C-alpha cells in the first residue's frame, strides 16, 4: 500500500477530483496548505511597509492506494494538475504499513477499496 501525497494548485483540485474519480478510486483526503518552492512568493503591503513571504496557497491531497494503482494514480494526478508553469507542485510516495476502516474494522486492501 502506498500513500500518494500531492501538493497542487488550489484551482486544480476540481480537475484532480474528477481524474481520481475516473480511476474508480473512492477515497481521498484534502488539506489547505501553503507551500514554498521555486514559485515566487507573495509580497504584502501593510500601511507602507512591505513583507514578502515565500509561501503560496496550495492544496495537499492524500490517497492511500494499492501498490498496483500507484502509477496510474500518479499519472492521472499529474495530467489533471499540471499547467507546465512553475508552481505546479510535487507528488510524494510514502509507504503505508496497513489501513483500517473505522466503520467495521476491515484491514488491509479491503479497507481502501
Amino acid at each position, binding site marked *: 500500500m502506498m500513500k500518494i501525497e500531492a501538493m497542487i494548485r488550489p*484551482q486544480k483540485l476540481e480537475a484532480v477530483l474528477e481524474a481520481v474519480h475516473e480511476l474508480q478510486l473512492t477515497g481521498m483526503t484534502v488539506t489547505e496548505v501553503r507551500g514554498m518552492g521555486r514559485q515566487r512568493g507573495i509580497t504584502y503591503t501593510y500601511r507602507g511597509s512591505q513583507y514578502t513571504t515565500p509561501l503560496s496557497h496550495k492544496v495537499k491531497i492524500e490517497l492511500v492506494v494499492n501498490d498496483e494503482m500507484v502509477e496510474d494514480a500518479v499519472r492521472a494526478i499529474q495530467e489533471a494538475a499540471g499547467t507546465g508553469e512553475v508552481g505546479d507542485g510535487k507528488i510524494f510516495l510514502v509507504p503505508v504499513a496497513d489501513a483500517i476502516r473505522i466503520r467495521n474494522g476491515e484491514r488491509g486492501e479491503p479497507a481502501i477499496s
Partner: protein
Amino acid sequence: MKQVRWALAGALLFFGPMARAQGSDTPPTADLVWVALSAVLVLLMTPALAMFYGGMVRRINVLSTMMHSFIAMGVISIVWLALGYSLAFGAAGSGWIGDFSRTMGNGISTSEPAASGGSSALFMLFQMMFAIITPALISGAIAERMKFGSYVAFIALWSLVVYSPVACWVWNADGWLFKHGALDFAGGTVVHLASGVAALAAAIVLGKRRALIHREPIPPNNLTMTLVGAGLLWFGWIGFNAGSALAMNGVAINAFISTHMAAAAGMIGWLIVERIKTGKATALGAASGLVGGLVGITPGAGFVAPVGAVAVGLLTGAACYLAIGLKNKLGYDDSLDVVGVHGAGGLLGAVLTGVFASEAANPAVKDALAGGRMELVVKQVVAVGAVGVYSFLITMGLLLALKAMGGIRASAEQEDAGLDETMHGEAGYNLY
C-alpha cells in the same frame, strides 16, 4: 402636472430661494433633518454594498471587490462636486445635459440658515450619495477580473457621460424624460436600470472569468457578510426611497412602508421560486430576494400603496431569480448578477410602478393617470428603453476605448492568484 410627477425634481423648487412663501407657518427644519438623515442612510449603502458583493466572491478577491465600492466613495464624491452635479442639475435648456453653472460647488450655498430656504446644498449632497452607489453597483459584473486602475477611470468617466446625463433627463426640471411624464420616485431608471444595463455591457466587454471557463468552483467566501450587507442595504434603502420625498410627509411615510414591504415580499418571492426549483430556501436567496424587492419598488415607492408594494416585491423577487438564469443561456459572465437583479428588477419595477401606482398612496398619481393606466405604462417603457439603450451603448464604447488604450483586464496570472494579492498586495483574511 409636471410638479407632481417627479418627487425628486420637486427638490429643486423646494430648496430654491423662493420655495417657501413668506409667512409660512411650517418651517422646513424637520424636513431638512429628514433629508440629512436620509443622506447619511444612503451614504452607508455603499459600504453595505461592499459587504453584499464582497461576501459572494472567492476569498482571493474579497478586498478587490470591496474596494470597487469604497473607491467609488472616494472618486465619485469629488467628480460629483467638481462637475457631475452641474451636468445633472445645472440649467439644461436642451433637456439633455446641464451646464457648468454649478461646477466646483459654485452656486450651492450652505452658509445661509437652511430654515430661510436659501440652501440647495443638502440636495446636492443627497444626490451625491446616489451618484456614488450607481457605478459601484456595476462593479458586481466585472468582479474578480478587472484592473483596478481601469476600473477607477471607468467609473469616473461613466459617472460623467452616463449617470449625469441620465439624471438630467429624468430628474432635472428641464430634462426631456422629466417632461415626458414617466414616474420614477427614487431612481429605478437612473440608478438601477442604468447600472444594470451597463453591467451587461461590461460583462460582455470583459469576457468570462478564467475560473468559469475552466469550470473551477467559485465558492462565495463569506455569506454571513453578504447577509449583513443585505441587512444594511435594507436599512439604508429607507433613506434612498423615503428620503426621496425630500420632506417628512405622507408620501415619505408611504415610501418607507412600501419600501419595507417590498423588501420583505422580495425575499419571500425569491425563496418560494427557489424552493420550488431547487428544493432549498437559501440564505443567499433571502439576501438576493430582498435586494430584488428593493430594486423593484424604487421607482414606485412614493406612488404605490403598501399592499401594492407587497405585490411588486413578490413579483420582482421571483423575476430576479428567474432573470439570473439568463446569463448561463446567453453566455455572458455577470459575476454577481447585476443584470439579473438591477437590470431586470429595475425594468420590471418601472413597469409595475405604472401598474400599481395609486392615488391612495400619493394624490399626484391622479395626474399621472390622467391618460389612463395603459398610457402611463407605455411612458414607463419608453423611459426604460431610452435610458437602457443609452447606458448600454455608451458603456460599451467607454470600455472598448479603455481596452484599446492599454487593456482593462487582469493578467491570467493575476486572475488565478487573485486580485487581492496581485493588485492590492493584501489578503482579506489571516484567520488561522
